[in-house]
């Protein structure tokens, strides 16, 4: 049989096709015995980053615990799309109580298991950014402080998507949401202090804290599995694009998640007991503009007139992250930022989004512009 050399599109990462790998190196998702914790049939939108992230995270946690896992979920998209009456997509014991209490419910489950001597069963709490950084924050802080044996996962899509895309404390500056519209001279969401929960978790010196994106799913799986090696409070913050809320094409979810890391806007790192032990280096640095352009929530920065002032401030945030977290392997990388990433998305560097791309928007995206007004 003639030999065919396989070329991996990406090198130096875990993003290679699973079935080309040795079985032991395959991802959890590529294994026959994957648990499908969040199984098919749910009602997530096309290209939902949260559904992707939750599926990978929970299956990895299920693998790490040999299926002895209980999940406590906050109110939000993940809860709503997974349990439309009379169906449930959850194939693990799962409870949803309220929007703001998932960490406390998870802590209660963990306490009960401890009282019952069920040390074999582990607990995951999960919420979107609203349920984590805003309404659930007090409960999360209590869970951290008490040292409860819970892995808490935040699926961060940077706004309240379930209620119609309103701003949360995790919404980035300049982003358009339903209540941070670029009206008048305002560039969308304010440039505020922000609330960086991964760093807050780090300051608690938790046994394990990590950030991840749905672009590097092997990395996400590895982090969840690593988190389950520890006991006590652990925190993973996953960047999950939302095509509906961000006005991005469903097919660009993974691309956008890759770009957010490659720009430096979302540093991907992991920390143990308060010390950063690993950083995902930027492989091919790109200017933030390449990331912004794929999302209509930033369209007002480019049309009707370019807001170079605002783009520069966003670039400064990325630059600070790059420096602070040491995101570059080679400092010379900082000099050249060719926008190859969006070239790969079929866009010319520096060019406007072509009209046919907008036409590719899903029905849900059309619904968004109908309900929340034109981004122009």
């Amino acid at each position, binding site marked *: 049989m003639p030999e065919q050399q396989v070329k991996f599109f990406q090198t130096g990462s875990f993003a290679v096709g699973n079935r080309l790998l040795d079985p032991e190196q395959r991802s959890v998702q590529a294994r026959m015995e994957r648990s499908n914790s969040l199984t098919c049939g749910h009602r997530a939108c096309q290209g939902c980053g949260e559904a992707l992230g939750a599926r990978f995270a929970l299956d990895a946690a299920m693998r790490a615990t040999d299926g002895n896992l209980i999940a406590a979920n906050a109110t939000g998209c993940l809860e709503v799309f997974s349990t439309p009456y009379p169906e449930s997509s959850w194939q693990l014991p799962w409870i949803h109580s309220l929007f703001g*209490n998932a960490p406390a419910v998870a*802590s*209660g489950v963990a*306490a009960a298991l401890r*009282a019952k001597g069920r040390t074999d069963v582990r607990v995951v709490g999960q919420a979107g950014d609203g349920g984590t950084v805003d309404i659930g924050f007090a409960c999360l802080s209590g869970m951290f402080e008490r040292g409860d044996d819970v892995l808490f996962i935040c699926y961060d899509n940077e706004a309240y998507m379930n209620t119609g895309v309103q701003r949360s404390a995790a919404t980035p500056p300049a982003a358009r949401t339903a209540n941070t519209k670029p009206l008048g001279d305002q560039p969308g969401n304010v440039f505020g202090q922000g609330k960086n929960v991964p760093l807050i978790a780090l300051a608690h010196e938790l046994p394990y804290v990590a950030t991840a994106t749905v672009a590097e799913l092997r990395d996400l799986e590895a982090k969840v599995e690593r988190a389950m090696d520890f006991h006590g409070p652990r925190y993973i913050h996953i960047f999950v694009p939302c095509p509906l809320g961000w006005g991005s094409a469903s097919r660009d979810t993974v691309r956008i998640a890759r770009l957010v890391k490659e720009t430096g806007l979302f540093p991907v790192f992991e920390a143990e007991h308060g010390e950063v032990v690993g950083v995902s280096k930027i492989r091919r640095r790109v200017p933030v503009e390449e990331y912004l352009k794929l999302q209509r929530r930033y369209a007002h920065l480019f049309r009707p007139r370019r807001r170079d002032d605002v783009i520069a401030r966003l670039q400064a945030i990325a630059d600070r992250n790059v420096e602070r977290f040491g995101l570059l392997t080679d400092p010379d990388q900082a000099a050249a930022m060719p926008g190859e990433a969006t070239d790969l998305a079929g866009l010319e560097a520096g060019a406007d989004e072509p009209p046919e791309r907008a036409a590719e928007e899903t029905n849900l995206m059309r619904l968004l512009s109908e309900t929340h007004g034109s981004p122009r």
Partner: protein
Amino acid sequence: MLEQIEGSAAVARTVARCRPEVVAAYPISPQTHIVEGLSDLVRTGELEPCEYMMVESEFAAMSACIGASAAGARAYTATASQGLLYMAEALFNASGLGFPIVMTLANRAIGAPINIWNDHSDSMSQRDSGWIQLYAETNQEAVDLHLQAFKLAERVSLPVMVCMDGFILTHAYEEVDLPAQEQVDEFLPTYEPRQVLDPAEPVTIGAMVGPEAFSEVKYLMHAKQMQALDEIPSIASEFSDRFGRDSGGLVRPYRTDDAETIVVALGSVLGTIEDVVDELRAGGARIGALGVKCFRPYPLDEVREALGGAERVVVIEKAFAVGAGGIVGQNVRLALSGLPPRVHDVVAGLGGRPITRQSLLGLFDDVLADRLEPRQLHFLDLNRELVERELERMQKGRRPGPHAENILRDLGVVAAGSH
């Protein structure tokens, strides 16, 4: 065994003998001594296995109880006043999901103005939260109701609130017969959850329900409360057989057989009311009292039966619906619809104001002489002069300042300012 003991300590020790596996609590007066007692018992290992969770809020306390109960543990908490309001969202969730959590409520007023003393505005504000509400008259009854509460909660799979008057009961030292561990174990079986988070048999708890079945799920909550109307007397009767004393039940009539006037109340004030009834009876008045022991589910038939033959009913209540009237009174009227008794609503004992025998005697004299207008909300011992003065200030100026400060200044509690 009989002991001279503080109400809170008695409750703490009794709850411990009910073997809760998770206790989650946040401090608020006057509940603190109860959970401090439980914390001690967990630390010394007397209550074991049990996880005592020091949570960061009442909202987290109830949420942790929800998680613990869902994982199959017997869960307990205690709170009061603002704490109950802060957990309000989780209260409805616990009852909606059907978790048999037991909570002691050390009844206390709700601000503003902030006030730590006893009344029933906290429990009454949550009367429609889907929780069963039992009201203790004495510390002995508070102890006994906790035993019954766990049994009841787990039998109907609904949460139960045991309401005991803050300070008046929680901080009072009196003789209490504490049930022994063996007696409790015989009375209260091991908790067998109706639904449990178990990896061996995964279930989804708390799924979304739309218009197609929401009414049915809510109806089931109501059906379980109606079922509790049968369970409560049955559990009280079983308790009485085992422990040789009467505690709990739905209602407790006192000298109502031939009564023309019946006084209705909840909680510790019943003792004072019964003393006054005795005194008036001695003078020839045909008066009695009805203690409502269980306010949710509302024992409509029992109230109707107990009050239906009277001429007048006086409801003494430690809370009211601002802008509407009495709360218990409205429920009493519902039970009496179509029957002759006139119902008088009297608000008393707000924010810890003592309800004295003298005031009650004056009130009942007015009632017996038909001097009390039935369609009006009455306030026992209301200082009308104080109220009139503040109303006048409001009429006079655009900016009279805070009510509480003005009234305290009138009373001489706050030093006179330059207002």
